[in-house]
């Protein structure tokens, strides 16, 4: 007899089709989050905080309560929500432009305060929604609409390594960088997001997962090529790894 081994997660709306471009990494990450919320039975107790970027309309995708925040400020909204309703599970879903560029100050202070929330940051090394401008995480030499000849450090500096910086903040319980490029990496990404969620559930502190994800449209690549570009090029600059895990330190 055949058994169902995989199905569309319940925490995604039944007809909530993603509005992203073909091959866009956002969809895989949103699905992983929905799967975990199902697994932890948190659907009724979750408040998701959306950000400004291609993923802005979380309420069109998730069957969850969603609050919106202005650009880069979702960790502040999440802080307020969590402090008022400490029994709720609260996470922010942000891009690199949102969490690591315009809102990096908010991200750092949320980590330093050790807020009991989780941030999932999709790093596609550009401002996807507005047409592919450079962000803080853009690679040296990367061509974007604001770095048409490639990012030049003497003019626009060097890429910001968000997960490593957040790992350096005392209030951070978990910080990692993952990629959703292969089945193995997708499994590891899910385990990292699980750990960051558990940091909140166990009251350990701030959880931060940076996910390297494809933006085929603004990279001017086919989806398969874009995914390979992450493994071959982006990971050389933004290496995968767990940079802080307080739960692992405790069990030592």
């Amino acid at each position, binding site marked *: 007899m055949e058994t169902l081994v995989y199905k569309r997660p319940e925490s995604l709306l039944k007809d909530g089709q993603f509005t992203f471009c*073909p091959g866009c990494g956002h969809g895989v990450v949103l699905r992983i989050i929905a799967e975990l919320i199902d697994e932890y039975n948190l659907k009724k107790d979750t408040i998701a905080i959306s950000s400004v970027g291609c993923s802005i309309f979380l309420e069109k995708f998730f069957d969850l309560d969603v609050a919106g925040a202005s650009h880069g400020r979702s960790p502040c909204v999440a802080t307020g929500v969590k402090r008022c309703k400490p029994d709720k599970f609260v996470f922010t879903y942000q891009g690199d432009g949102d969490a690591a560029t315009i809102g990096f100050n908010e991200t750092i202070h949320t980590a330093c305060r050790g807020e009991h929330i989780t941030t999932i940051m999709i790093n596609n090394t550009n401002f996807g929604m507005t047409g592919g401008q450079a962000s803080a995480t853009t690679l040296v030499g990367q061509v974007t609409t604001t770095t048409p000849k490639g990012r030049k450090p003497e003019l626009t500096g060097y890429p910001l390594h968000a997960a490593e910086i957040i790992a350096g903040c005392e209030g951070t319980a978990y910080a990692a960088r993952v990629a959703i490029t292969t089945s193995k990496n997708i499994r590891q990404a899910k385990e990292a997001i699980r750990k960051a969620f558990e940091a909140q559930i166990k009251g350990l502190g701030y959880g931060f997962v940076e996910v390297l994800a494809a933006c085929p449209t603004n990279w001017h690549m086919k989806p398969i090529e874009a995914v390979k570009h992450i493994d071959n090029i982006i990971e050389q600059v933004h290496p995968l790894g767990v940079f802080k895990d307080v739960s692992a330190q405790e069990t030592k």
Partner: protein
Amino acid sequence: MGRIVIDRDVCKGCYLCVEACPKKLLKKSQTPNLHGDFPAEFVDEKNECIGCAMCAMNCPDVAIKEVYR
């Protein structure tokens, strides 16, 4: 032995599933869907599908909505 269900009108034709399937059971369809995309198609004449769900895991649009084993 396994089986998958693809929602062909949700599929955007990125073919990441084609790349991900270890048994090479997915291919581009010759007929377009509602949106004019050529969706992925599951062809398993020799019952080779192992129900590993790697195709679904890699799909950015949850167009592969069920996997059976």
